[in-house]
């Protein structure tokens, strides 16, 4: 009968093949889902994956790829460091919100001062805000051994309440005629995270995402710290004998992830979103988990995976307006992707082998 047999070495071929097969399998399962919802599956898949890039109106959608992809990549790079070392920060959504709040807070505090240093200060504040929010689970884990998964996740709900409180109270636009939400930072020259080249979608967040990818690549491949992260993930005991201090690694991984998520939030609130509002966060922090795994926790992989997931967001919006496909269908689609990836990943470490039944 068919049995799983452990490979002596993880298969290099399957490491690269798994994400591709997972994407194809998700497309297949997605087609079934779309057909079930009464939509033509071929049209739906084409609308999601082809139209944003190559259709008549692609000039409008292509910049969105950078706008939506940047926060995903930025957050996922941070998460991947921790995931590699077995440190599970799943509260990036909260760190993203807090980064946006602190970043926007600094910007709003300077309003209407016109000075070159406002935006850089906002960037620093955003990163610090996300970092501080991530330090809560990190310090609790280091000091008390508290589970960082649950604490970081609980803090997402706390951050959401804080966001609601801020957009209804402290940060509410005094000239907003009572509507919730802050001043629009897009109308405040010094704080606006504007497009660097008009019509490309390229803003400072995209630049930061590319820098993060390169830095993470160098860190993981050329730096002792990156080596320690990989070592801790693959052989925690050996890592301890080699002199790796787990506590320091926890602080570094969670802190970096928090700072990057905070940056993502700050660039979003100062640019594409424009203002602090109750429904500011759209789940990038959770989708980034899918991006990190789909990218195999590798910086370059994450870049590609981020682009793909951004595509599903954009294509999903097109499908929503043109085909009436519910937004939840896209959410489900993204969830399926992670499912298939994890399922097919078994082939990396195991192979199928025929084994005759024998007497034990």
């Amino acid at each position, binding site marked *: 009968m068919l049995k799983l047999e452990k490979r002596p070495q993880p298969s290099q071929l399957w490491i690269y093949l798994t994400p591709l097969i997972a994407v194809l399998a998700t497309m297949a399962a997605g087609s079934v889902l779309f057909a079930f919802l009464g939509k033509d599956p071929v049209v739906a898949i084409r609308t999601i994956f082809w139209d944003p890039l190559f259709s008549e109106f692609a000039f409008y959608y292509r910049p969105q790829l950078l706008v939506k992809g940047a926060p995903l990549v930025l957050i996922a790079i941070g998460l991947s460091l921790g995931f590699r070392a077995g440190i599970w920060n799943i509260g990036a959504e909260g760190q993203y919100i807090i980064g946006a709040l602190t970043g926007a807070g600094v910007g709003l505090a300077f309003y209407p001062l016109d000075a070159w240093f406002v935006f850089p200060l906002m960037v620093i504040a955003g990163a610090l805000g996300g970092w501080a929010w991530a330090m809560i689970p990190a310090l609790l884990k280091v000091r*008390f051994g508290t589970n960082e998964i649950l604490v970081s996740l609980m803090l997402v*709900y706390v951050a959401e309440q804080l966001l609601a409180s801020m957009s*209804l109270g402290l940060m509410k636009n005094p000239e907003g005629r009572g509507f919730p939400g802050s001043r629009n930072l897009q109308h405040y020259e010094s704080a606006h995270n504007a497009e660097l080249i008009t019509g490309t979608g390229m803003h400072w967040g995209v630049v930061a995402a590319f820098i993060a990818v390169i830095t993470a690549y160098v860190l993981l491949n050329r730096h002792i710290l990156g080596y320690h992260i990989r070592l801790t993930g693959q052989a925690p005991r050996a890592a301890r004998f080699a002199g790796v201090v787990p506590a320091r690694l926890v602080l570094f991984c969670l802190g970096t992830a928090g700072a990057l998520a905070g940056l993502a939030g700050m660039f979003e609130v100062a640019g594409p979103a424009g203002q602090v509002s109750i429904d500011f966060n759209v789940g990038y922090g959770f989708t980034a988990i899918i991006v990190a795994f789909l990218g195999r926790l590798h910086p370059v992989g994450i870049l590609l995976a981020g682009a793909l997931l951004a595509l599903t967001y954009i294509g999903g919006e097109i499908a929503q307006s043109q085909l009436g496909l*519910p937004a939840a269908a896209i959410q489900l689609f993204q969830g399926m992707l992670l499912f298939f990836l994890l399922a097919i*990943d*078994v082939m990396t470490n195991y192979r199928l082998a025929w084994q005759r039944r024998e007497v034990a």
Partner: protein
Amino acid sequence: MDFGSISPVLLLASLMVAATPLLLAATGELVVERSGVLNLGVEGMMITGAICGFATAVNTGSPLLGMAAAAGGGAALSLLFALLTQFALANQVASGLSLTLFGLGLSALMGQGYQGIKPPPFPELHIPILSDLPFVGGVLFSHDPMVYLGLLICAAIWAMLKYSRAGLILRAVGENHDAAHALGYNVVLIRICAIMFGGACAGLGGAYISLIRVPQWTEGMTAGIGWIALALVVFASWKPERVLLGAYLFGGVTVIQLNLQAAGVAIPVEYLAMSPYLITILVLVIMSADRSRAPGSLGRPFHASS
């Protein structure tokens, strides 16, 4: 501010109602974790159960059928997790997360068109004599049957783990799966059963929220209760009797918080709404001093090489 409007009978009675979804989900997850599997998908299974139960109850007019569908829905979703972790040997943390993401999307999709509908009411159980007792009757004996089912399941799990052979086997699998395998127990099968039980319980807990506690359907309505249930298992040191205590404690916090909101305390609503999550963190910090109680094989994948 008007504290006089808070009646102690109603407060304690609604405490039991608020605690029930937590109790159900946490008891289910406790069984899963005692079998050595960490399923982080409780939130996803709860919300799926919530919509399965809601849709079935609305379409059939029977809340009991709704509850059954919720348990079935939760168990079906947990089967996906079982496939991933037991056959594909995937990382349990990642699989649980994907289950939650998947469940949130699935429930949102299934819930299209169910917003703003009122589900059929659940029959209140009227126990003769007991329900008419002053104070005690109002607090303890005038609830819907699900409150008692939750208590019953928790007690049954306590008795099973403590006194029965099945409980012993489940604990053996959770403490040391290699030893259990060597003794001839089918580790994978036992774990799949535990995972599905956990899924069914989480589904019931979710449907309790959508059918009885709220009762209506809104996207993402479980709002982290599944995650609090996970924290509750840690709080309870993997013991059913302490899950009960924990669930009532958290039920109490929720109810007091809601009552304070209604009474118009000077604290803004958002900060009151944060409190259950902050208290969960606080409890986790206090409880994590003693980690010795966690099942030995918790979260480790099992692959029988021979």
